């Protein structure tokens, strides 16, 4: 049962009458293993928060089943589900100090004071709030309140930890470090956690698997590496990854044993016919019009490539982001060293067949990734 520790079966959420109201979550099914960290990722209104709230029990499940730790829980009130939740809006009790806020659940469970102190101390140190434990929540900055709220959720013993936008307000300099610490904390204790976020960076950093949602539907449910390398459709491909994936519509033809991809504005990408596996080539040729996607860090500068003109070259300390005009559009490249090009430079762009993601222009579904079919 551990690989199906939490299980959503054909879950629907309607706001208003079933089948008539707003269909916020559409037939979502997913399994979560014990000890896994899952991110529900999507833009606002995609249904991710509704899904989380159904798991927590704050929202009635309109249709479908939710199993947690071997029990069917969709009819249970929140208090009986044994889940801990950190809210987006901090929601600290304003009348008691930060320490008592964090210790609240432990004290309610009548743990000995020394144990409570030790646990609070540990989690406070992890989240860098040891120095503000005696302050009142109202005197804290947004980032501090959010860390206190996280601490209050993480300190509990629960079957499942639900974190709603847990780090949106965090100070930027702390974010990467705290993500590492929180991931370590969860993993070390074998805690199962689901976090909701609109920030793909956060989802990638923390999650073992990401559930990408849009329009109430689960678009893809896979590991960060899988989503990066094999996005299921154009939405996932362009939503996950910063800088976003470059996308160009092309028309394909075969001439003289070469595969030509005609870009807008008359330029062409030319590949040897065997650059793609036969079944990929067939899938491309039956459609003719396709959309190619290529991740910025796989775009190469190479004399033999297609010409492009540099629009900007932005050095960020550890990466260079270059934008160049290319085929009536803009192509973005990421280089990990400081790039020496300046605005107006002519560069040549090479897109390797192994780095191409190919999508159906009508449905947006992925046809192939690199050399393999999707």
């Amino acid at each position, binding site marked *: 049962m551990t690989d199906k520790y939490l299980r959503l079966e054909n879950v629907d959420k309607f706001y208003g009458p079933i089948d008539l109201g707003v269909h916020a979550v559409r037939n979502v099914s997913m399994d979560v293993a014990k000890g896994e960290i899952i991110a529900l990722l999507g833009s606002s209104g995609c249904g991710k928060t509704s899904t989380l709230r159904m798991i927590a029990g704050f929202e009635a499940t309109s249709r479908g089943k939710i199993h947690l730790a071997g029990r069917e829980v969709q009819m249970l009130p929140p208090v009986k589900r044994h889940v801990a939740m950190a809210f987006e809006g901090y929601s600290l009790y304003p009348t008691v100090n930060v320490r008592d806020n964090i210790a609240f659940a432990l004290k309610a469970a009548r743990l000995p004071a020394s144990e409570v102190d030790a646990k609070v101390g540990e989690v406070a140190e992890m989240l860098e709030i040891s120095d503000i434990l005696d302050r009142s929540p109202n005197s804290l900055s947004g980032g501090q309140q959010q860390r206190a709220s996280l601490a209050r959720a993480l300190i509990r013993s629960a079957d499942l930890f639900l974190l709603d936008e847990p780090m949106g307000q965090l100070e930027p300099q702390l974010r990467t470090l705290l993500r590492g610490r929180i991931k370590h904390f969860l993993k070390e204790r074998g805690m199962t956690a689901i976090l909701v976020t609109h920030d793909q960076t956060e989802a990638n*950093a923390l999650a073992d698997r990401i559930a990408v949602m849009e329009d109430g539907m689960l678009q893809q449910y896979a590991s960060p590496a899988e989503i990066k390398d094999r996005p299921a459709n154009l939405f996932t491909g362009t939503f996950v990854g910063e800088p976003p994936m470059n996308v160009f519509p092309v028309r394909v033809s075969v001439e003289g044993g070469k595969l030509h991809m005609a870009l807008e504005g008359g330029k062409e990408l030319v590949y040897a016919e065997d650059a793609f596996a036969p079944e990929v080539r067939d899938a491309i040729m039956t459609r003719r019009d396709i959309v190619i996607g290529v991740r910025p860090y796989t775009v190469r500068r190479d004399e033999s490539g297609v010409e492009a003109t540099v629009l900007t070259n*932005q050095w960020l300390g550890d990466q260079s982001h270059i934008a160049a005009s290319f085929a009536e559009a803009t192509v973005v490249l*990421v280089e990990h060293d400081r790039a020496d090009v300046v605005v107006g430079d002519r560069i040549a762009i090479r897109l390797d067949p192994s780095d191409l993601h190919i999508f159906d222009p009508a449905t947006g579904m992925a046809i192939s990734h690199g050399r393999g079919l999707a």
Partner: protein
Amino acid sequence: MSIQLTDIVKSFKTDRVLDSLSLGVSRGETLVLFGPSGAGKTVLLRLIAGVIDPDEGRIVINGVDMEGVEPEERGIGMAFQNFALFPHMDAHANIASPLTARRRTRADIEDRVNEVAELLKIRHVLGHKPKELSNGQKQRTALGRALAAEPSILLLDDPLRNVDAKLRFEMRLELPRLLKAQEATVIYVTQDYKEAMALGDRIAVMGAHGIAQVGTPEDIYLTPADTTIARLFGDPAINLLDVVPEQGGGGPEIQLSGARMPLDTAYAGVVGRPCILGIRPETIRFTEAGAPGVIPVEIEAETPLNEKTVTLAATRAGREILISRPAGTPGPDRGTAHIAIDPSGALLFDQATGKRIHPGESA
């Protein structure tokens, strides 16, 4: 100088937000004001725009002292963080408002609004009221309004703050071209260090006590004035470790997790002085055990970050170190690993003051 601020003081009730601040911006330059919220960045922009007045000090724009000059007479374009569009006017009227104020002819206004809208790709929504626009379109309309009258001074108050990540990234790539085409002097406020480095000819870092450092993005990133500034630039943030350099065989060196890291000989003066060692996560490499200067660490977590892989590791003494490498390059993800630090990229700061120690400086 296109804008010259001298000894500006501004308080709100008892709170002194700006204390004797001086700053110059040259013609055609893009200066980024960077700093945490509450540092007075927005206040400074409002002082320059003339909607609030300084308690003390002089503001000179294009050679003219601005004391007593009303905001509408300053010829400035400004974009606000919350857009501040006129809710009862459509996008066209919003963009046209600086032109109507300048009593341009109707045909002139029409031409210019269309030109700006074309540049910002919002021609198709010119007839929409602000509440019918998406956040991205609002932001572009606000920018269009600021640019419409081709002002010689542009003040941009964190204009990308309230748009989503994807759009923010696109605009970050697009803005330098737009700004250079205007040939305007630009002051750009942001809290995002990437925006600051990408857009600024120079960056003025504001701290709790006014301007902490002014310099090119290179200056700020490679030679930050103190640990606070060093931490503000770079994601993941710079590693800061308390150390006391010792005299080694070949010069000054640092003991880290049982290994010895040699320092540049120019740091000979710091031996015995309590320092903070600053190491950028991207200057640390994973390597094989056994080589000289290699430090053993225990890996705690691996977190992918925008085409990079960030590893949180702990030294034997339990000190945390962040290491970043390009995504897709090999590296260990659990257990014990070994790292090598490039000493040439290491920075030293004074432990008491946090100020950077310059090579060649003596104790």
